[in-house]
């Protein structure tokens, strides 16, 4: 199992411990093969960037060891609305998330 697959499973598991609504996770390689994570949840619409990030980082500190924390270079935390605005409706559909505004 690759780090990407393993981390996706770990994120899916740990996000169940948060109050985030229907969180969707994508773990992917950045341009320089660094591991990036994107989490979508409509709950993020009600949170500022710090609240979103701290919600996820608290779970990472509880459930990930230092090696796995180090592997993750950045976590993008977006609401489906923001993601659609940045990357379009089709990309949002690929993600399996739904924009509650529609």
């Amino acid at each position, binding site marked *: 199992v690759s780090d990407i697959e393993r981390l996706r499973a770990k994120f899916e598991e740990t996000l169940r411990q948060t109050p985030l609504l229907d969180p969707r996770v*994508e773990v*992917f*390689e*950045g*341009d320089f093969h660094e591991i*990036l994570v*994107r989490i979508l949840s409509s709950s993020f619409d009600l949170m*500022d*960037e*710090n609240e979103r*990030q*701290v919600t996820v*980082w*608290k779970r*990472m*500190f509880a459930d990930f060891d*230092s090696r796995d*924390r*180090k592997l*993750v*270079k*950045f*976590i*993008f935390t977006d609401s489906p609305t923001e993601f659609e605005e*940045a*990357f379009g409706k089709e*990309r949002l559909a690929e993600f399996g998330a739904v924009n509650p505004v529609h």
Partner: protein
Amino acid sequence: MLPILKERFRGNIERVKTQVALYEWITSGVRGRPRVAESDLLRAAVVFLHAALEDLMREIAAWKLPDARPEVLSLVPYAGGDGRSTKLSLGDLAKHHRGMSVRDVIFESVLNHLDKSSYNDPDEIARLLAQIGCGASAIKRLMDRHGPNLGVAMSRRHQIAHRLDRNEDSGRGQHGTRSMSKKVVQIWIENIDRFSDDLFEEVEKISVSPEDAS
């Protein structure tokens, strides 16, 4: 030593706050979402904030690391070497350190080592704290309280400094810039300030170095 470190850190944090104030000044009266060029001042503040944190860690380490346990100092390359080697021969001593006290050799080596060090995530900070003699329970206390907050600010700093804060998606391509708010930067400044308060408290408890005792 501690008052000097506190004052230096305070001065560095003031520089971060000045950048936020500059952002306030150039965006005052501007309607709508700030332009990327304007919010870049906030990104610069995040980079400075991380630099202030790294400077604090380095200064504390420069104070405490020379008195660290021998097994910790064994990992520090000696000054005058190739920057990697930790094995020192009598010839190396004669070449680079003749006439110096053992303490001076250790001190100079530690400073050279710290000059090249960086702390990019909370675990690297925790590792340094262990090296300087901070107890496991103190490190756990600090990381339980501050680890996630540090991680949030440090990872964003990495994204800003190495990826110009691009809103990356899978696959190469042109991506926009992530938004950055003044309120969030101010929270991160407060968080790192609070971490420094707790850190100073814990560092004070580390056994007194011989220099301070004299």
